[in-house]
Structure formats: structure tokens, C-alpha cells
């Protein structure tokens, strides 16, 4: 016969407390009347609709009251500001916490917005397609071949334009003799017909610019124009040596010219660049669709043409094409969306935390609220007043969060990092601003309005009469889950951060390498010339010898050596097979850090063999027997201290069907930094350097080498202008800088985890303090009746234990998950340590939580029963 339970619960939740009984009685009375008149089914339906209508009207009415009831009178605003200032620590903690949460959520939102908005940011940008060329058999990327490119451009009808481009670092020789390695775009000139970039001065590239025999030309981008030429329009027509070729500058592109990639110099691509196909040519192919064109039709036609082309050329493997609109995320945005959801989750936890602080503080003001109610203030007005304070803090936090987010994103954009699509629009737009306002208001509701509603839900009249009122927690589950979530989050983040930080900074990474790194320059070089694979190694060796001898002629320089590995950085992990398994159990294939180093590498580092010998000059001859060196940690770890000299090892290849090339171990060297952070990854192998287009030249000086940097740059350029000097620095500074990066990242994670942990403890303290204060009278009665302190404390301590146990268990799981994710995804390696950190952390959190519970409880236990009974 009664009304639906949910309908009663709804009205009980929404109606003002003094009207609840009357309204539910009315609902019941009318419901019974309806049952008699219209039957049970219709009565339930009508009553349900009525309950919803009543609830909605009450909510609308309450909102209207709040908005029209002088929501922000001058005196209330002043009071709110005064309360913020009077509690500087809590206000600061709340603003920082909300600011961090809002900043993180906004950063994630902006990134996702950019990723989900894949069109190139100019008219016609949606017609551009990326065309990836893969080997049909292996699925590996294939380089673009001239014949195939010509066939496609001549025969493809499904695409309006086929362009190709690549970026390389080339040396630009300035008038003052300074050499600046500059990112240079080599692009099909005809592509400019489809790009919207209007030159600031001069012209863009024209199709004839790429033809054989034409005068070499170049465009520069606004950034370089401003930096090197002071925006002088006279730069057009001048000549510049770019990568060893004198070119006439014919125009200046605006800074927005960032597609297909960031580059400060743009030069026309010549088809002859494709005539000598070689790995490392690295031209990427793209197309422009006609109006209404589809990537799939392009893919089908180009693939078909590619098959015919391969059939006509025996021995040529067909290609596989993958064509998609530029920026098409192809499902890769999903992890990003998860990140945003997680970041918003962090914000909710943070807002819940602030809410707990506000609740606890509001509890102390209940008498004041009761008096104000008695003087005629409505509940809506009190809620508005209490929320105003959080709204002010939220507004400050929202502003700070937005500022931090924009600074971070702007730093990301300005870094012009190669792996960030340059056309991603990360600037502040209306949607981001709306999102910030929305989450700030949301955080204000969670942190301000809900606690205020809860604090004012008490029957204030009862309070004034000395009763306890009904100011129990409105969302008790909300409090519990917030505290548990915070503890879990803090232990997960803090444990992970501590383990990574300790791994990086505590041991191996913090050691000093026993090498004269202060006297060594590290010169990162790239050969920009295209060389066919069969002559590349010898050409590079010749070039290398020329560069080495030019550098060694500089006064103050003792020696130099080329290497693929810089001491103190992570050497690549290479699959190796060690011959024979008689002495020790070594897996057939072992991934070991393997450094390819040039002649004189160990001598330059003052390293002496522990056993056997170092590499000799004749070890680098192609016909010489292959040799290898191993380091001491490898001997200890894999050879169990047994002398490995004479043992053989070789690189395991994917198609291991050719003749095996074994390297004989001829010596043992000390540990010279094969890993930046992980001792377990420092046990490795050295092989002779066989020539590569990118390598590092280590240069040993007879003193601090900083002043020699310009001389080294010039010596390299004069010897071979096609060798780009990417970076020159003192080795010791590079090691320090790398260590600093680890330190900053590790510290930031640790600080974040610590902040969340402290916030969760403060939150727990606030909740328990509120609870204990509310129960002061009850505790007084129990003490008067002879209850012991232990019995009174037990429920509180049990609850704290439950918080930490549940939060700690979830947090440990989360931390272990984060660690495995970090190991799988972080470029930086870190050692694995035991999960003891998490156990210690949970125990620490339990101790701190008990302390947080003990402080308020002790106060209550210390007072005499009579005083306790006079409380409130």
C-alpha cells in the first residue's frame, strides 16, 4: 500500500528537513487514494512521476533561492576572504592541491583535444595523406625508390599530388665563420602548390627548382630569419653554404610552416636523391587527395602499380602500402583518453580531500551557523556563504592550474621535438577554457557545496537547545572511499617514485666513473651524404680518419676516437650467443649491452686491460679475425669469475642462416659505464666500430676542453661539410646533465606522491577530528560509566587500520603495476629492487595515520566527563 521506497528516499534527500514528514505523508495519502480510485499499477506510476516532479521543483526552487538570495553580498564575500586569510596553511594546501589537479586535468584535456582533432590546421589539410611503404614479406619499412616514385607520379589517378620529404641536420656556414647545425627540410617543390604558407619575403619553391642543373636555392623559416638575420628583408638573394652547397636564399617562410615537419631551412628535393636508394635515405611519401578522394582508393591503386612494377623486375620484392589521412590516430588516442580520465580522477580525489578539510573546519563553526539560522538565515544562504570561500580558492586554483598547464604545453611545443606532430594545436581555445571553468565549478561543488550542505543539514534548533543534532556524515561512503583512494594513490605513486629514484640516484647512477671525463669532449656527428650501402662502411672509415686527424691537429688535443657509445649512457642491448656451455650455464641467446668503439677508445679513457689486451689498430681491418672485449661485471656475472679469454661470442641475427661470424674474447676491461642507471645492465661487451652514419667522436685534451669546442666544429666542417656536428660538450657535464634529468624526474614523482600522502593523512586527521568532536558528549558519558580508554579508542583505531590496510593493498598493487608499466615504456632504465619499499611505506603510513587519529582522540580522553557533557 505504501509509496515506492526510492520516492520517499528522494524526497527525504532533497526536501528541507522540517518539511520531509509532511511531504512524505502527503505522498502516501494521495497514493492510497489513487490506488482505490485507479488501481495499484497506475497509482505507482503517477506517484513516481509526482515524486520526481516535486523533487525537481524543490531543487529548482533551492537554486533560485541561492542565486537570488544575495549569493555574493559584499559582507559575505569579505567574510569568505577573511576566512581564507585566517587559515593560511589550509587555504594554501587547498589551492595548491586543487591547482595541481586542475592543471593536470587541463593538460590531459588539451592533449586529447589536439589528438582527436587530426586535421592539419589549414584549409585543405584534410586532403593530405601519409603513405607508408612496407616490405610485403617482412612488414618492415622500405625506403622510397626513384623508379617506383616516378611510376606512381606518372600513373596514379586517385591522387592529385604525390610529394616526398625528409629532414636532416645540415651545417649552415654563416658569414662570421660560425657553423650552425640546422634542421633542414628537403621537399618536392611542387608540394608548395598545396601548402598554405605565404612567404614573408621573396617566394616559395617552384617545380623547376628541383630540376637538374638549376641554381641551388633555399628557403629559411621566420625563426632563423629573426635569430640570424634580424628580420632583414635583404636576406633574399644572398648566398649561404648549407651542408657544403652554396645556395641562394629565395624566400622566408612564416613560423607556422611546420608541415610536414619542423625545419628552419627548406631546400628542393631533387629526384636524383632517390636514384641511389640506400638505408637512411629516409624520404617519407605523402599525397594530396582530389576533392572527395579516399585514402583507401589511393592505397589500392598504388599497391596495384607497385605489384606490376615488382613483377617487371625479377628479384625485386613487392611493397605493401598503408595510406591514411595525416593525423588519423588509428585508435592510438585511446590510451590518451584513459590518461585524461585518470587525471580527472586525481582531481576528484584532490577535491574530495579539500572537501574533508572544509567539513572538519565547518564542524567547528556549527554553533555560529546555528545562531545565524536562528536569526533567520536560510539553509541555502548558509550553503552559498560556505561555498563562496571554496569558490574563491577554486578560482585562484583554476587560474594557476591553467597557467601551469599552458606553460607546460608551450614548453612542449617550443621544444620542436621530432616525435611530436608539429601541427598539433595545443594553444588555449574556447573548449579548453570551458573545460577549466567546468572542472573548477565541479571541484567547488565537491569541495565546497557538498560539505556545506552536510554541515547545515543538522536540525539547528536542536543544536541551540544543546542536542547533538543530526549532523552525521551525509556521504559517509564518500569519505571512506576518498581516504582509501588517497592512501592507495599516494602509496602507489610514492612507492614507485621512491624505487625509481633510489634505483637511479642511490647507487650505480650516482657513482663516479673512473675516467678523466673532465678532459674529454663528446662530439656527436652525422654524415648527411647519401651513400650506397656497399660503399658506406669504407667511405665512413675514410671520412672518419680524415676528421680524426684534423681534430688531433688542434693544439691542446691529445687524441680522439670514434664510438657508437658514450661512457655513462645506455649501450644498446644486442642479442649475443656465447659459444660453449661447459663452464657455466649461459642461455643460448643473451641480450647484453654492446658498445662498438673505435681505435684508441680505451687508451683515451686511460683504461687498462684487467686480463688479455685491448683492441689493436689491425683489429679494425675488414679481413682481420673478429675480436671482442668483455667488462669485469660480465666476467663476474656470466663467467662466474672464470677467465673468458679465448671464448667466442657472436651477434644473433634474425635470419641466422649465413656463415656465423664469431668474435674471440681477447681481453677484459674495467666497468666503464655501459649503463646510465642500472648495474644489472652494465655487464657487457665491446666490439670494434665498423662505421656508421651517426656516431660520437670522443676527443681527449690536455686540460679543460671547453674552449676548444669552436675549433673542433670548424675542423670537422673544413674536413667534410657534409658531416653535421649535432652537439659538442664536455663528457663530465653530459653525465651530470643526464643524472640531473633523472634526479628531477625522480624528485618530481616522489614529491607528488609525498604531497598526496600528506594530504590523505591531513584528510584522515580532519575526518577523525570531526567525528571525535561530534561524539565528545557520548565519550564523556562512556568514561563516566567506566569505559576504559582502550575500549573507546578501539573503534577509531580499527577504522584507521582498515583505511591503511585496504588503501595499502590497493596502492601496492597499483605501484607494482606502475613499475612494470614504467619498465616496459620508459626509455630510461632503472634497476629492479624488492617490493620491501611498499611494505615499509604501508607501515609508515599506518604509523602516521595512527598518529593522526591519536591527536584528536587524546584531547577528548584527557577531559573530565563533566566537561565532556558540557560540550557543544
Amino acid at each position, binding site marked *: 500500500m*505504501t*509509496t515506492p521506497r526510492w520516492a520517499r528516499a528522494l524526497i527525504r534527500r532533497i526536501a*528541507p528537513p522540517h*518539511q520531509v*514528514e*509532511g*511531504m*512524505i*505523508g*502527503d505522498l*502516501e*495519502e*494521495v497514493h*492510497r487514494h489513487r490506488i482505490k480510485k485507479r488501481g495499484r499499477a497506475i497509482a505507482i506510476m503517477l506517484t513516481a512521476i*509526482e515524486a520526481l*516532479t*516535486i523533487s*525537481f*521543483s*524543490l531543487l*529548482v*526552487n533551492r537554486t533560485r533561492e541561492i542565486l537570488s538570495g544575495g549569493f555574493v553580498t559584499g559582507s559575505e564575500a569579505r567574510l569568505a576572504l577573511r576566512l581564507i586569510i585566517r587559515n593560511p596553511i589550509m587555504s594554501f594546501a587547498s589551492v595548491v592541491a586543487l591547482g595541481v589537479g586542475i592543471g593536470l586535468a587541463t593538460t590531459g584535456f588539451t592533449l586529447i583535444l589536439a589528438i582527436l582533432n587530426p586535421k592539419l590546421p589549414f584549409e585543405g589539410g584534410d586532403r593530405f595523406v601519409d603513405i607508408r611503404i612496407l616490405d610485403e614479406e617482412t612488414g618492415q619499412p622500405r625506403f622510397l625508390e626513384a623508379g617506383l616514385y616516378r611510376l606512381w607520379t606518372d600513373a596514379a589517378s586517385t591522387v592529385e599530388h604525390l610529394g616526398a620529404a625528409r629532414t636532416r641536420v645540415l651545417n649552415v656556414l654563416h658569414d662570421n665563420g660560425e657553423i650552425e647545425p640546422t634542421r633542414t627540410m628537403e621537399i618536392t617543390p611542387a608540394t608548395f602548390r598545396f601548402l598554405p604558407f605565404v612567404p614573408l619575403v621573396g617566394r616559395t619553391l617552384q617545380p623547376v627548382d628541383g630540376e637538374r642543373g638549376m641554381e641551388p636555392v633555399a628557403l629559411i623559416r621566420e625563426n632563423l630569419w629573426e635569430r640570424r638575420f634580424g628580420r632583414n628583408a635583404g636576406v633574399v638573394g644572398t648566398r649561404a653554404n648549407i651542408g657544403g652547397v652554396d645556395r641562394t636564399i629565395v624566400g622566408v617562410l612564416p613560423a607556422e610552416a611546420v608541415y610536414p615537419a619542423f625545419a628552419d631551412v627548406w631546400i628542393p628535393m631533387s629526384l636524383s636523391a632517390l636514384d641511389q636508394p640506400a638505408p637512411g635515405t629516409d624520404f617519407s611519401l605523402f599525397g594530396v587527395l582530389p576533392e572527395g578522394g579516399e585514402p583507401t582508393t589511393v592505397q589500392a591503386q598504388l599497391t596495384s602499380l607497385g605489384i606490376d612494377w615488382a613483377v617487371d623486375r625479377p628479384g625485386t620484392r613487392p611493397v605493401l602500402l598503408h595510406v591514411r589521412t595525416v593525423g588519423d590516430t588509428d585508435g592510438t588516442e585511446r590510451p590518451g583518453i584513459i590518461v585524461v580520465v585518470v587525471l580527472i580522477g586525481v582531481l576528484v580525489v584532490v577535491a574530495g580531500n579539500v572537501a574533508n578539510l572544509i567539513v572538519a573546519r565547518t564542524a567547528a563553526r556549527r554553533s555560529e551557523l546555528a545562531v545565524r539560522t536562528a536569526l533567520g538565515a*536560510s539553509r541555502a544562504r548558509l550553503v552559498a556563504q560556505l561555498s563562496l570561500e571554496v569558490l574563491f580558492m577554486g578560482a585562484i586554483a583554476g587560474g594557476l592550474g591553467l597557467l601551469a598547464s599552458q606553460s607546460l604545453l608551450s614548453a612542449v611545443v617550443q621544444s620542436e621535438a621530432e616525435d611530436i606532430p608539429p601541427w598539433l594545436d595545443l594553444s588555449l581555445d574556447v573548449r579548453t577554457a570551458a573545460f577549466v571553468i567546468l572542472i573548477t565549478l565541479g571541484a567547488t561543488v565537491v569541495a565546497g557545496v557538498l560539505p556545506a550542505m552536510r554541515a547545515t543539514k543538522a536540525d539547528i534548533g536542536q543544536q541551540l537547545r544543546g542536542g547533538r543534532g543530526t549532523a552525521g556524515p551525509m556521504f559517509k561512503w564518500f569519505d571512506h572511499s576518498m581516504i582509501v583512494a588517497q592512501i592507495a594513490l599516494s602509496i602507489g605513486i610514492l612507492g614507485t617514485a621512491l624505487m625509481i629514484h633510489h634505483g637511479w640516484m642511490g647507487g650505480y647512477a650516482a657513482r663516479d666513473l673512473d675516467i678523466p671525463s673532465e678532459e674529454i669532449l663528446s662530439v656527436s656527428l652525422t654524415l648527411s651524404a647519401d651513400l650506397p650501402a656497399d660503399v658506406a662502411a669504407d667511405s665512413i672509415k675514410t671520412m672518419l680518419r680524415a676528421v680524426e686527424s684534423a681534430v688531433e691537429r688542434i693544439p691542446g688535443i691529445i687524441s680522439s676516437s670514434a664510438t657508437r657509445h658514450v661512457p655513462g649512457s645506455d649501450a644498446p642491448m644486442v642479442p649475443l650467443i656465447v659459444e660453449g656451455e661447459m663452464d657455466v650455464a649461459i642461455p643460448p641467446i643473451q641480450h647484453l649491452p654492446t658498445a662498438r668503439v673505435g681505435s684508441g677508445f680505451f687508451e683515451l679513457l686511460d683504461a687498462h686491460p684487467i686480463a688479455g689486451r685491448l683492441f689493436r689498430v689491425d683489429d679494425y681491418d675488414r679481413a682481420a679475425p673478429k675480436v671482442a672485449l668483455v667488462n669485469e661485471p660480465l666476467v663476474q656475472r656470466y663467467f662466474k669469475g672464470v677467465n673468458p679469454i679465448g671464448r667466442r661470442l657472436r651477434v644473433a641475427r634474425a635470419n641466422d642462416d649465413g656463415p656465423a661470424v664469431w668474435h674471440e674474447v681477447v681481453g677484459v676491461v674495467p666497468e666503464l659505464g655501459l649503463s646510465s642507471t642500472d648495474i644489472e645492465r652494465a655487464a657487457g661487451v665491446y666490439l670494434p666500430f665498423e662505421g656508421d652514419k651517426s656516431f660520437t667522436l670522443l676527443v681527449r685534451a690536455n686540460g679543460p676542453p671547453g674552449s676548444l669546442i669552436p675549433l673542433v666544429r670548424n675542423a670537422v666542417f673544413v674536413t667534410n661539410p657534409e658531416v653535421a656536428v649535432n652537439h659538442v660538450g664536455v663528457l663530465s657535464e653530459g653525465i651530470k646533465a643526464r643524472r640531473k634529468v633523472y634526479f628531477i624526474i625522480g624528485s618530481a614523482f616522489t614529491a607528488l606522491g609525498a604531497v598526496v600522502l600528506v594530504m590523505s593523512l591531513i584528510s584522515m586527521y580532519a575526518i577523525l577530528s570531526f567525528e571525535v568532536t561530534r561524539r565528545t558528549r557520548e565519550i564523556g558519558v562512556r568514561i563516566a560509566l567506566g569505559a576504559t580508554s582502550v575500549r573507546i579508542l578501539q573503534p577509531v583505531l580499527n577504522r584507521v587500520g582498515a583505511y591503511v590496510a585496504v588503501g595499502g593493498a590497493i596502492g601496492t598493487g597499483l605501484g607494482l603495476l606502475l613499475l612494470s608499466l614504467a619498465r616496459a615504456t620508459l626509455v630510461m632504465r632503472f634497476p629492479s629492487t624488492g617490493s620491501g619499499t611498499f611494505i615499509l611505506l604501508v607501515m609508515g603510513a599506518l604509523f602516521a595515520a595512527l598518529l593522526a587519529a591519536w591527536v584528536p582522540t587524546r584531547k577528548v580522553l584527557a577531559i573530565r566527563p563533566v566537561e565532556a557533557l558540557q560540550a557543544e
Partner: protein
Amino acid sequence: MGANRVGEFELLVLLAALRLGPAEAYAVPIVEDIEMRTGRSVRRANVYTTLQRLEGKGLISTWMGEPRAERGGKARRLVTVNPPGVDAVKEAAAEIRAMWGGLETIIGDIA
């Protein structure tokens, strides 16, 4: 004069409460009374919010009656019209009469 001016629906609620009297005036019969006399459909939610508003203005007072079985043991929140409420009704009626004056030949008498 006019400090507690009431709207049209507020006037109807006040009149219904006066008619029902302090012992019988609560939301359910107020709705019925207005519906029966005016012929228009009235939502009880609107009566609740109007009663809240009138109480806020001090024109009525509400008080809990005795629990009643036909209401599932719940009491009725009864309405008493305060003297300012009676004055507000009189003022509204006077205003209507004043505006009506002279229009009898066009739209007939007020009653």
C-alpha cells in the same frame, strides 16, 4: 502598503488555506480546493514551493499535526494564514476591485 504583495498563484493558495482553516489546511486539500474551484490543474510541487515562499515572507506559519494512519503514520504539515497574509489577500482584492471599476459595462460585474 504593498510590502507583501502576492502573485496570482500565491493568492489562490492563501485563499484556499483561509477557506480550509488552520485545522484542515495542508498541501493535499489546498490542491483539491484550487482545482475544484478554478477548474485548472495544479501540481502539488508548485503548492510546496509556494508555501515555502509564503512562509519565507512571513505570510503563513506551518506546524505539524498528529500522526495519522491513512498517511502511513505521518503527520500533516498544517498551514495557518498570519495577519500579514490576510492583509496581503485584502490588498490584492482591493487592487483588482480598483482596476475593475468602470469596466462593468464591458466585462460585467466582478462576481
